[in-house]
């Protein structure tokens, strides 16, 4: 667990030295809902960590995800990673694709953790059915506990890039600013993971995303 995160953007090499020298592990939790492309996003993050020479593990919850339930995927990288999953207080970064899910998984963030939250709302069925209410003050509630909160509008950036479907890569682009991976490595894994005809679109989404924070 990396507990003394005082990272600012673009400190790639400094962060790398810190991880390797102190045997730190960086943990990122991606959270959102089924259909948002979270597993592709966490694949990219896993691949870039390996590309950059780290040990890396990823976990995800399958099963009900296709049916509109909550989805979580954790990526951990460092010199040597043990647990593939995260527990409360273990995440250095929380990247949430949906506001409510950011709040739901907030316990995972450690005391110095950083959140990138997509300003996107999707009503769960009980809310749609009028049985529950979608909280109106989610960002305020998050800010009560998290010191570093970045709210981004991934959807409009994705549309600007060319498709709502690349919202996941926009958000990965945003969090990339805080992670110790070189831009070239990101581009390489995007090319490797994404079908050829969508590579350009995804690279554009990544770039626009990285300009968000």
């Amino acid at each position, binding site marked *: 667990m990396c507990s003394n995160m005082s990272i600012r953007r673009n400190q790639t090499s400094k962060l790398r030295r810190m991880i390797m020298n102190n045997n730190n592990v960086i943990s990122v939790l991606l959270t959102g*809902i*089924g259909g948002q492309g979270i597993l592709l996003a966490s694949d990219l993050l*896993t*691949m870039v960590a*390996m590309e950059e020479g780290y*040990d*890396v*593990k*990823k*976990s*995800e*919850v*399958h*099963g*009900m995800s*296709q*049916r*509109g*339930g*909550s989805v979580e995927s954790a990526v951990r990288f460092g010199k040597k*990673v*043990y*647990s*593939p*999953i*995260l*527990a*409360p*207080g*273990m995440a250095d970064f929380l990247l949430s694709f949906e506001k*409510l*899910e950011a*709040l*739901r998984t*907030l*316990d995972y963030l450690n005391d110095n953790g950083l959140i990138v939250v997509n300003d996107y709302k999707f*009503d*769960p*069925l*009980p*809310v*749609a*059915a*009028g*049985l*529950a*209410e*979608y*909280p109106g003050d989610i960002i305020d*509630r998050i800010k009560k*506990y998290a010191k570093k909160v970045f709210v981004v509008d991934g959807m409009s950036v994705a549309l600007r890039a060319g498709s709502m479907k690349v919202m996941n890569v926009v958000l990965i682009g945003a969090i990339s600013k805080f992670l110790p991976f070189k831009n070239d490595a990101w581009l390489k894994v995007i090319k490797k993971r994404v079908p050829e005809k969508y590579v350009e679109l995804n690279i554009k989404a990544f770039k626009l995303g990285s300009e968000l924070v």
Partner: protein
Amino acid sequence: MEIEKRAILSGNEAIARGAYEGGCHVATAYPGTPSTEILENIAQYREIHSEWCTNEKVALEVAIGASFGGARAIVAMKHVGLNVAADPLFSLSYIGATGGIIIVSADDPGMHSSQDEQDNRNYAKFSKIPLLEPSDSQEAKDLVLEGFKISEKYDTPVLLRSTTRISHSKSIVKLGAREEVPIKSYHKDMLKRVILPAHARKKHIFVEERLKSLKKFSERFPYNRIEKGDNSIGIITDSVSYQYAKEIFPDATILKLTMTWPMPDELIKTFASMVRKIYVIEENDPFIEEYLKVMGIPVVGKDKIPLCLELNPYIVGVSLGKIKERKPIDKGDIPPRPPALCPGCPHTGVFNVIRKLKLIATGDIGCYTLGALSPLNALDTCVEMGASVGNAYGMQLAMKDDKNRKKIIGVIGDSTFFHSGITSLINIYYNNGITTIVILDNRTTAMTGHQGYPGTGKTLMGISGREVDLEKFIKGIGIENVYVVDPYNLKEVTVVMKREIERDDLSVIIARAPCALLPDGIKEKPYYVLADKCTGCKVCLKVGCPAISMSGNVATINKFFCVGCSLCAQICPFDAIKQVN
């Protein structure tokens, strides 16, 4: 020879890779979370014949046949699948292996997608076969290779136990080349393969002797290892729990058990003599803990660490006093986000009719189990795969003088019906039952991600298989009342269902439309709400479609999610829902 390559693989992908590198010839399975991707990934290796079988028992029987024929075989299933395959498993223990044979059980501690969290390590002990438990993807691959060797050397099936966190976590794996293993030529061996009582009595002695040999092997097996550290705490652990133990107690002396049955007594004794106190960190049952207690070694285990649900580093750390409990965050009220049937799901219409007719419906395992949840509330029971057919009939026997007797129906999916509903249906026919069975035929095994089954004629290797004609098959039993309905037509479903439950005879209703997520699933123009006609009565919300919600005082339909199934328009009492032109 391939040069050494590395890849990030899930445990399931790694098991598939292990089958490939280990010279496996035949791979079988019935899909089930968290095991499904094992066979899906084996299918990419054309050197291996891979197939979806009708159920886990059949899958194991096919694998046993392949082993008889001299081939290396692997069979994969989720933990509860091994209950289905338990009958051949126990015989196979006595029979042993010809070609190496590995049974993969993917357990689900925490029940992410299962009806129980049974601990299938117990099956290894119960059936007296060796048990291998990987702690990451590299080991998942390696243990398939080791498993084939153990199987052939000791004449035994091998149980490889994964869990959700092993199967669905990715880590770095070194890839190797495939070792071609020749298929052994067949020799008839009655004593070995025909387990008549006279043979089985001899074979039981063989099984007990085999366990003794395996125990000696377990002592030297390099994957069972002591990692020396601080001797004030010793930890014995297996599977993914090993990772949590390393995370929380990086300096402890650890006995990592990878072959957990039979257990290495001498290694355990050596370890116990090295440390002052022993913690056993394992998920679910106190499998290792009880073994140590029988050996007379005092340990801390389930008295501190929870037995129910899966572990994680936090739970391990807090329960053993290594880390402090975190104060829960006050997040205020958060609405849950339960899974729901998809927009346009063909099951939704049937469940709307069941709810409207106030039927008593026995349910089964699949996407359609979600029909039990609000707002559909359409199912009364769910036991295990195939249960609904026998359950409905049994309820009718019990409630023969009850006025609701004829309201009882059994609801089962198409893949599930082939899995294990068939025998129950034949049983009702044979015993003069009058039950109504509804088969929700969405042309796929949807819940696990669209696998083929006999009713589709689509095989795992992509070769066009022969399709079982469901109606002909059921009529072939002798059942006369077999009706196919369109699940998107509520009126038709209602008429047929009402008529059939009143009938004093067994009948089968097949509600047929492809899963909405399939390429040939419903894709019509979306519907919208006429705001001036909508009275805000919320009847449409009861359809259970995630595309409909309230916007102020009127209903609204999300045009991106709506696939035009029309159920909401059929149910709206004010004719306020129309299709886009």
